[in-house]
């Protein structure tokens, strides 16, 4: 168990900068998820922590010790790979015991550790099987077991659930969380799936184009994104964005979206937005914050009418898609309130959750 620190870390492949000067502090026992689109540098960052990639400049320290020049085996880390990376000619037991054998542990100690890890992961009956005879989920459990038996300072997960089907992915996600609660160890987890990031992480690190966009708890990232990228990346379906102009409306403010839609700004935000009155901005609203009206006929200027293009029933909710000024919008509504495609529907914007974004810098105001 140890803290991990990245200081001004840069990784270049020739002239291409894959990771651009990142700083990150991961306290002891924390579960941190690096999330971002393909090519954002999250896996490279993880591999640099593991020692599988050399860093171009900066420092990486584990447990207070700078490990820049240490080989992976001397960093006291364990890694779980996307494709499991189990040794195909060894049984599950031997796969888990391999690292311990190389470190000259006694046979009794190896047996005790492997059996303990197998109990945690519920794979005791599978220890005699080779990887070929295991399902995807079982293989991933063995791969996790291989990491657990070493009792390392840091667990590294490189998109461990990407090869599993949707149902198994949800099960294994819970399993990983359960294991972390039992085996309290500093964990760095890489994924491109923001749902995985939100559900697993103590803190999420959102990366984009080799840079860290924002670090925060899942709640912070969802409710208080700092950039348009984070606002759009976190949440599914993604946040709706549309150009708007911030206007004075009497003593208050409002966002002018179109000739028929002008949403009032909540009074507690007026001070924050006062400096950008009259400017062209981008309005961001999540699909779950544009719903059917739920105010019993009371109007607050936040209702508007749209023509539905596509209706996607999901069971407990329905996604409706429509266009405002040429921009596609999505809303999450009650199944009973949604009409068919082509029908008109009245919607209500929950402006308490609105975000105004500076289009030039991409930062949330």
């Amino acid at each position: 168990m140890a803290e991990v620190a990245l200081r001004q870390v840069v990784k270049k492949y020739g002239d291409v900068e894959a990771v651009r000067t990142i700083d990150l502090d991961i306290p002891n026992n924390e579960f941190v998820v690096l999330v971002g689109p393909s090519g954002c540098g999250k896996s490279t960052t993880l591999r640099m922590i593991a020692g599988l990639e050399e860093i171009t400049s900066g420092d990486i320290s584990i447990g207070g010790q700078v490990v820049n020049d240490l080989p992976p085996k001397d960093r006291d880390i364990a890694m779980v790979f996307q494709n499991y990376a189990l040794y195909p000619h060894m049984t599950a037991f031997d796969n888990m015991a391999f690292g311990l054998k190389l470190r000259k542990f006694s046979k009794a100690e190896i047996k005790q550790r492997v059996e303990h890890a197998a109990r945690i992961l519920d794979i005791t009956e599978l220890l005699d099987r080779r990887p070929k005879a295991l399902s995807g989920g079982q293989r991933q459990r063995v791969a996790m077991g291989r990491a657990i038996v070493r009792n390392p300072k840091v667990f590294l997960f490189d998109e461990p659930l990407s090869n599993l089907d949707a149902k198994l992915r949800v099960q294994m996600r819970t399993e990983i969380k359960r294991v972390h609660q039992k085996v309290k160890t500093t964990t760095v987890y890489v994924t491109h799936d923001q749902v995985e990031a939100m559900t697993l992480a103590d803190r999420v690190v959102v990366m984009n184009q080799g840079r860290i966009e924002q670090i925060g708890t899942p709640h912070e990232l969802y409710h208080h994104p700092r950039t348009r990228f984070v606002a759009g990346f976190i949440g599914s379906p993604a946040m709706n964005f549309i150009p708007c102009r911030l206007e004075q409306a009497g003593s208050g403010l409002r966002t002018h979206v179109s000739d028929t839609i002008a949403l009032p700004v909540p009074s507690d935000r007026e001070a924050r937005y006062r400096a950008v009155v009259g400017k062209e901005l981008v309005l961001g609203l999540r699909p779950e914050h544009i719903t059917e009206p739920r105010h019993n006929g009371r109007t607050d200027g936040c209702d508007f009418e749209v023509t539905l293009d596509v209706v996607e029933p999901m069971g407990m909710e329905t996604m409706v898609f429509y266009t405002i000024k040429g921009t596609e919008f999505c809303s999450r509504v009650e199944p009973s309130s949604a009409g068919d495609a082509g029908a008109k529907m009245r919607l209500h914007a929950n402006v308490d959750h609105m975000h105004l974004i500076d289009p030039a810098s991409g930062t949330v105001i």
Partner: protein
Amino acid sequence: MSTATLAVPAGKTAPARSSLRRSRRWALFASYFFLILFAIFFLMPPYYMVVTALKSDAEMARLATNPWFIFDGVTLDQFRILLTQTDFLIFFKNTVIVTVCVVAITMVVSVLAAFALGRMRFWGSSILATGIFLTYLVPDTLLFIPMFQIVRSIGLLNSYWGMVLVYPTLTVPFCTWIMIGYFQSIPKELDEAALIDGAGHMQMLLKIFVPVALPGIIAAMIFAFTVSWAAFVYPMAFLYSSDQQVLTVGTVTSLIRGDVYKWGMLMAGALVAAAPPLVIYAFLMDYYIAGLTAGATKG
């Protein structure tokens, strides 16, 4: 609606299915026909060898008889004389020594070279790998004159140990090439997992790569064995006394005297010489195919 959708395909699929069955039957028939033709064509020489080896010299001398059949009864005389009155067993022993040594040397060199070229990233590794394969393309008929100078200069002319030195120049390039393909087909996460588990490069090779790449290694071994067992040009050029001779050249030089061909013993000798490769191929053919096709079918 459902009745209509059921009725239309039912009427149409019945003839379609029977035509499919008929065309499959024809394909099967054609396959068997050509396979049998192929088998007969390729089994003819071995059959002729067996028939000739089991005949007496007297029957062979009677030109009037049909050479494809045995009329005077089966005899093992050719084998008995071959094994007791010629140097055939010496040739056999020499060939086994040379082949075992060549296969061992080839595998050690090829596996190490292929691991380095296929898995360890260093400057020029891909050019080196191609260069190694290009050396395989130079035929031994071109190489034997400079090789002769080398073998003579180190005092191994007319010694089968010279063959142990020379044959790997034929086997190492191709075996390395096969192994590079096989090693490259193994996911890179496997060596990364081994590195994190604490393995050094040699441990990684011996404990992970060699077991995982076993089909490729066996394919390379079979190739090295075949080349070494069947080599003809080098022993023909470098070996001239019968106590140093190997099977391929020894059998021919000792059983063909001028224009006198001892056909019975030649065929018996060829049969005995062909037995070890046959046995090895029969048991390891699956590995051989898996090894040779690994690069083509794996990511």
